[in-house]
């Protein structure tokens, strides 16, 4: 793979994005929701109803189960521990947001080139299929990741200033690092690679988008399962999921290259 060619095509994608900022609006909106929702649930709602989180029987039961498995919770007073538990779980939302947003960019990546009749000239260059597809994935992945990290920084900063003392410290842990720096990016890469693979075979970006967004479901299930107290995902479990995702992503790279049929695209696509 030629890094310069990948960089050249990525620069084109990013320039197009710059000239059409509305394209990244879904990611920005989702991150904004991810920022607002945890504070509404953990701080605003209890203040409005006058009932503390720790007095809720369900939360107390889940917390008792989680305290033994998640680091830092047992050292906090009950209300702070409940807040810390919720803020940790809502980190999962930050993994889902870039996937949903970036998938909308990636879904258009190959179909858009087909629709704009710009794919054939691109295929006359020495660009290989793998380079083409990796450029498309990275061009959707990197901006989404940057927005995600920016949102996370805001999340931690807001937690420091708004949540109970000691809550923010529980967010800065090895588990959170695995979630944010490994699981999130790997899940995004796998979802984007799948989107690009589908995008090269369909005529409508919505088809690619709808199928690829299904990859969000396991992450949502992880969030819901934990909040409901069905299970707690520990760091070692997260690492295993990350390894699985890395393998899935690599397989998807090969799969998408095999699926990208230059000849059919040139001769049959209308």
């Amino acid at each position: 793979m030629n890094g310069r060619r990948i960089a050249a095509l990525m620069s084109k994608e990013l320039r197009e994005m710059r000239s059409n900022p509305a394209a990244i609006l879904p990611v920005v909106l989702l991150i904004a929701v991810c920022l607002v929702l945890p504070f509404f649930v953990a701080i605003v709602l209890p203040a409005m109803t006058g009932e503390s989180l720790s007095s809720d029987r369900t939360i107390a039961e889940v917390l008792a189960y989680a305290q033994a498995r998640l680091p830092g919770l047992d050292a906090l007073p009950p209300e702070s521990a409940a807040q810390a538990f919720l803020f940790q779980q809502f980190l999962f939302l930050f993994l889902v947001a870039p996937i949903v947003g970036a998938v909308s960019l990636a879904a258009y990546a190959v179909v858009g080139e087909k629709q704009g009749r710009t794919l054939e000239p691109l295929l006359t260059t020495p660009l290989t299929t793998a380079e083409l597809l990796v450029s498309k994935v990275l061009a959707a992945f990197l901006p989404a990741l940057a927005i995600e990290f920016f949102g996370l920084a805001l999340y931690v900063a807001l937690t420091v200033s708004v949540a109970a003392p000691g809550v923010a410290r529980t967010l800065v842990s090895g588990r959170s690092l695995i979630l944010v720096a490994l699981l999130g990016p790997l899940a995004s890469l796998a979802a984007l690679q799948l989107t690009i693979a589908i995008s090269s075979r369909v005529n409508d970006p919505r088809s690619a988008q709808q199928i690829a967004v299904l990859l969000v479901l396991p992450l949502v299930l992880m969030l819901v399962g934990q909040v409901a107290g069905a299970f707690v995902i520990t760091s070692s479990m997260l690492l295993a999921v990350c390894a699985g995702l890395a393998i899935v992503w690599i397989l998807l790279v090969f799969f998408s290259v095999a699926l990208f049929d230059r000849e059919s695209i040139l001769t049959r696509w209308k």
Partner: protein
Amino acid sequence: MITVERVTRRFGSRTAVDDVSFDVKAGEVFGLLGPNGAGKTTTLRMLGGLIPPTSGTVRIDGQPFTRATSHALRERVGFLTETPGLWDQLTVEENLLVYARLFSVKDPRSAVRSILETFELRDRRADRVALLSKGMKQKLAIARALVHTPRVVLLDEPTANLDPQTARTVRDLLRTLRDAGRAIVVSTHNLDEIERVADRVALVSGRLIAIGEPAVLRREVFGHRLRVRVGASREGTPAFVRAAEGAGAHDVRADDGLLSMSVDGANGSTPAIVRALVEAGADIFEVADDAPSLEDVYLRLLETGRPEGLRYSSKEYPGAAR
């Protein structure tokens, strides 16, 4: 520089290109002519390594296009596709810059500056492509195909949408590229244009119908013809026709003081014909070669297929010799 050997391309049961062979040398402009659906674009795509032939071989500088070589060989080819296919949201300069980098041009910015100058696009370099006219887009697409100074240039309808002035610029550019030793293949419907720039043309309609220099094709298809303008005389015209035929002309046609006739050899019988006409009482105002247009040649060949005796041999062009 380009060698096409017995290339056939099928799409399912349909044969788009059937056993076509030709070559294009360095410093040559080669015209690919044919009606819609004749396989011109498919042929160009095979020459550019975009699609493989079903059978046969395409070589660039002696190297065949294969799965292993196609990426490297594409670096030597500049391809103007049927539609300009430019990124509308990017500027003129950005479009060129991306392609210069994709082709690993050493100094992409300087290459882009140079091609912008050549195509007189410098003033529009910061404009978004969406704002350009169709003609400007076509001009930019040609510039894009040449930004990496390719050794082989493939142009599909290069002057479509261009105004006469820009079309002339493109023709001049083709001549400059030819003088610089590039091998150029132009597919077009514009016969007048191809006649002005092409050193050789190939007429295809699925298979190769004819190939050669335009003047040679003309002669082979229509023979050598002479045009004689005489003083208008309705009464005398039949006598003039008889006189010309008596002096060795064939297929003599008369139209309002203009005689057109087929003669043997380049100029051998011309003095005898002129003498015979003068003796028959004709006042001669003009004697000239009667060169049919390439369009006449094209239409005749499409109607009749390859006439006997066309100047290519089965050894040189096996596909055409069937």
